[in-house]
């Protein structure tokens, strides 16, 4: 059984001018121990999907349709108190900015011990020992001393390590990591990615990795889901999607990424911009920017069809190719 099953998820914002649909019919699942990358550009609904899963959608945003199941149990309709217990115990969260995720008034030890004791049956001494062990595990040097430090006394990279320790404190089955390295310098980013990968492998923790960074997906994820304008356009094993993307949007996106080893020169360019939520085109949302769009793309929303082993794409044109 899949650890997490997201089925036809719709997240909307009611406004004076009608409903804005920010996540539109997204379905995917995550197996235990698997890393699923959820990738897309700003405003595609990738963070909202993550927030919906951990039950932290900010009103007026709301789940309008669909279901989210964790270990077979629905979690999208739980009362806030029940959801709070699941968050932390069964689902950990890592956000972009480690400063806002930590309480500046409490030592990192206090925060870790509190999280540990909320979710695990441990006394104060055992909790502190466990906190030190966690800090060591995430690579904080001299954890016996650092445990009494306040967040501002640590560098950005060290803070993000503490946030990871907090997310893993109760040994959750799933971690939702939303742009976990975006705020960090490149050499620190690589360290944090390696750490996250190693810990999740060792603890068999599944990860939903929300990011705009295809490079990070390539290094970390087992499978990848590509979002465009709130819709899933491609989902498949990471090697297949990155080496041979099938949806025209994914193809454009891969070509737009500058790479070392190609000489100075032009990048592949996707013309235009992503539509605003109040102006999503009919049919395939990508058709105005798509070089392969035909009449059908302008009228009908494409089905999510199989294009290879465990690889699907939402494109009318890809289906035509597969048949011929």
């Amino acid at each position, binding site marked *: 059984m899949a650890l997490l099953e997201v089925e036809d998820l719709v997240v909307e914002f009611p406004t004076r001018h009608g409903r804005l649909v920010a996540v539109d019919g997204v379905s995917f699942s995550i197996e235990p121990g698997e890393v699923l990358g959820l990738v897309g550009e700003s405003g595609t609904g990738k963070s909202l999907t993550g927030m919906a899963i951990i039950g932290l959608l900010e009103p007026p945003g709301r789940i309008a349709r669909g279901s989210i199941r964790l270990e077979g149990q629905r979690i999208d309709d739980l009362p806030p108190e029940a959801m709070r217990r699941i968050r932390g115990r069964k689902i950990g969260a890592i956000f972009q900015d480690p400063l806002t995720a930590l309480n500046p008034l409490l030592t990192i030890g206090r925060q870790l011990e509190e999280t540990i004791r909320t979710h695990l049956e441990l006394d104060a001494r055992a909790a502190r020992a466990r906190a030190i062990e966690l800090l060591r595990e995430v690579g904080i040097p001299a954890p016996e001393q650092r445990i009494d430090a306040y967040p501002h006394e640590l560098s950005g*990279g060290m803070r993000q390590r503490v946030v990871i320790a907090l997310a893993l404190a109760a040994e959750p089955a799933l971690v939702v990591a939303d742009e976990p390295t975006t705020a960090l*310098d*490149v*050499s*620190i980013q*690589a360290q944090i990615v390696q750490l996250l990968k190693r810990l999740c492998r060792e603890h068999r923790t599944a990860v939903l990795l929300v990011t705009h960074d295809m490079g990070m997906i390539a290094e970390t994820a087992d499978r990848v889901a590509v979002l465009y304008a709130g819709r899933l356009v491609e989902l498949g094993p990471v090697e297949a999607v*990155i080496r041979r993307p099938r949806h025209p949007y994914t193809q454009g*996106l891969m070509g737009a990424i500058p790479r070392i080893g190609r000489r*100075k020169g032009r990048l592949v360019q996707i013309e235009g911009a992503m539509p605003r939520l109040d102006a999503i085109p009919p049919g395939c949302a990508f058709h105005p920017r798509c070089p392969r769009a035909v009449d059908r793309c302008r009228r009908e929303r494409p089905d999510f069809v199989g294009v290879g082993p465990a690889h699907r794409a939402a494109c009318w044109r890809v289906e035509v190719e597969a048949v011929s």
Partner: protein
Amino acid sequence: MSAPPLVVVEGLARRFDVSRPWLARLLTREPRRFLQAVAGVDFAIPRGTTMALVGESGCGKSTVARMLVGLLRPSAGRILFDGTPLDPNAGRKALAPVRRRMQMIFQDPYASLDPRWRVEAIVAEPLDAFGLVASRAERRERVSELLRAVGLSPADGRKYPHEFSGGQRQRISIARALASRPDFLVCDEPTSALDVSVQAQILNLMQELQEQLGLTYLLISHNLAVVSVMADQVGVMYLGRIVELAPAAELFERPRHPYTRLLLDTVPDLEMRRRERAPVAGEVPSPIDPPPGCAFHPRCPWANGRCRAERPELQPVGPARVACHAVEEGRLAA
């Protein structure tokens, strides 16, 4: 190379006073403290080419950029523009003819455009500031031409910045920078606030404009992949100094300084070779108390006693220049 370089920088340095207030210093008997943001940087940018400065936060790359366009005064060293040294003590009027020829594009297109100004006023500001247009009709004409050059429509001039996306705002910044017909553009992380597909549009636009107008660029970036598609020449900065300076193709093919190798190793591999990387230890130390000797030695796997004591200078190695004892002594194959 017959034509002299457009921009030459010699021994450029800048330190900031980060002392506590006078009374606090007196009470705690603390000495003054300085942050050496840039500690003597030399390079030259040939006309019509792109020089990139790369490094992590705090390496001083943005400070160099700000000194070049006159937003910060150097503590030492000099800048030659088109063969003439810029005198930091010269008045606004005296410098205006040179300042017109150099412009800057900033990282954050949300912060660098005044939200209360219409786009046409933003783009026309350099025209007015340098007195480059004689009439309102000419001004309007020139603004339309600039907006078209960056892929916007002349009608966009009537709108306000909030009506545009991040990529379009960066186009507006570029139009404004081009208004005074500059030769030299300093671009400080011009695409790091943008999505990749928008980044590709802006980088392509910058290349097109460079070819059409013969522009010379100084590109400041932390993203080596961006640098590799844009630059002719790359300087890698670490704690206020250039540690490696090389033609771009050379630098990416044969990185020599251990820090350059480290940076290149952190670039995610989109070819999916799934290589296991040697984890890079450590973080950038504080520029207030930089390590003695080579500033990179605490993170360097090849460091020895000499590296901890003696600061390496840039030495020619093939077509590159590298500041590393290990490379110089042949302990590390160049």
